[in-house]
């Protein structure tokens, strides 16, 4: 009984079909790790699943229900972290997190503090984002992700800009999300350090 399943995905990019009949299924408490050469279509796949890019054809099922990738209920349970972390340079890290999470659900101060500590952002969370380093920004975005309370995480190269400890952190956060009963789809070449049973590998074909 997969949590999320995709059938007959058809995506056209530029002058050719990037996906032609791709199918995949992710059970709950599993992490689907997508790899593939540059241009293989990892980002495209994640954006299609998030409903940000319209495919030519897609049969999507979420918890046994056939849905559109633009379903509001599905969106309510999904979090997408892409290349652009949706941070406003003129707000502090805290303000950014409060806004991003607040759009979805009410946020208690204790949960906020816990998430900030978890991503190691205590020292800089109250500074304007414009003054943060690339990796510090990324950690703020991770705190928003944690607090979104979403059961499905779609992560596009989550470890970008992070230091060695940060890269390990990504693996841990994914592990915790799985333990909570959530599902993760991540495009990354990094070893996430997950148990073999928790991980499903998907290697996309060569790009153009």
């Amino acid at each position: 009984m997969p949590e999320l399943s995709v059938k007959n995905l058809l995506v056209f990019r530029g002058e050719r079909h990037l996906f032609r009949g791709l199918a995949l299924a992710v059970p709950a408490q599993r992490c689907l790790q997508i790899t593939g050469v540059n241009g293989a279509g990892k980002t495209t796949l994640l954006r299609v699943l998030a409903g940000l890019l319209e495919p030519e054809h897609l049969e999507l099922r979420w918890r046994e229900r056939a849905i559109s990738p633009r379903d509001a209920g599905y969106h309510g349970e999904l979090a997408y972290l892409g290349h652009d972390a949706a941070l406003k340079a003129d707000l502090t890290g805290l303000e950014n997190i409060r806004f991003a999470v607040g759009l979805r659900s009410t946020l208690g101060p204790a949960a906020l503090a816990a998430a900030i500590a978890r991503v190691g952002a205590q020292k800089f969370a109250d500074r304007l984002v414009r003054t943060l380093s690339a990796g510090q920004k990324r950690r703020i975005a991770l705190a928003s992700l944690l607090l979104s309370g979403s059961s499905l995480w779609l992560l596009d190269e989550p470890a970008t800009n992070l230091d060695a400890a940060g890269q390990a952190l990504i693996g841990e956060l994914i592990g915790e999300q799985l333990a909570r009963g959530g599902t993760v789809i991540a495009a990354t070449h990094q070893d996430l350090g997950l148990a073999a049973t928790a991980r499903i590998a998907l290697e996309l074909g060569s790009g153009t």
Partner: protein
Amino acid sequence: MNSAANPPHLVRTGALAAALKVLQRDLRLAVRRPSQLLQPLAFFAVVSLLFPLGYTPELDKLRAIAPGVLWVGALLASMLALDSLFREDAADGTLEQFLICGQPLVGLVAAKTLAHWLLTGLPLTLMAPLLGIALGVPVAAMPGILSSLALGSVTLSLIGAVGAGLTLGVRRGGVLLSLLTLPLAVPVLVFGARATELAIAGESLTGPLYLLAALAVLGATLAPLAAAAAVRIGVE
């Protein structure tokens, strides 16, 4: 199995509350960058004051062109600020999050439009009497000018939001944006200038004011829907 989706402490934000959060954030961002607040005002002032400089210093003659000057100035100033309505949010990925946060996009877009009006249309309206005086407009006309500009600028912001949404996917869309929105804004300009003219002449301006109100209501019901549709299309 739903624990991650709905942990006990998690209370979903309502659609209205989400829209309010967007409004609040946009206002806060504007306050952090006061120079952006002043830019439309400065532009409005320069346009209005150019006419006495280039045309004639005689207040009698200026009074005749005051309605046109005030309305064209307000329209152009409001449009200048429109370009950035969605652009930044699109560039840093915020619009993507709007699309997938599970809240109705119409509400979020309407909130952004309201913020734009509060930050541009409202200050322009409040500034207009000052410029009016410089153009020889009698003080008795000010309530009429204020009310017509307040109503008209709402519609301008609404039309502008549709245009800004449509030009999202267009590189350097600033000029195209004005090309799209100005024709749509013609009725507002016509009725608005007419109302101002009547106000200066000391006559009753209920007629054009009703029409402006009708346009504002029509805009408020339709424009957010169109703008939301446009934004959805524009985010690739």
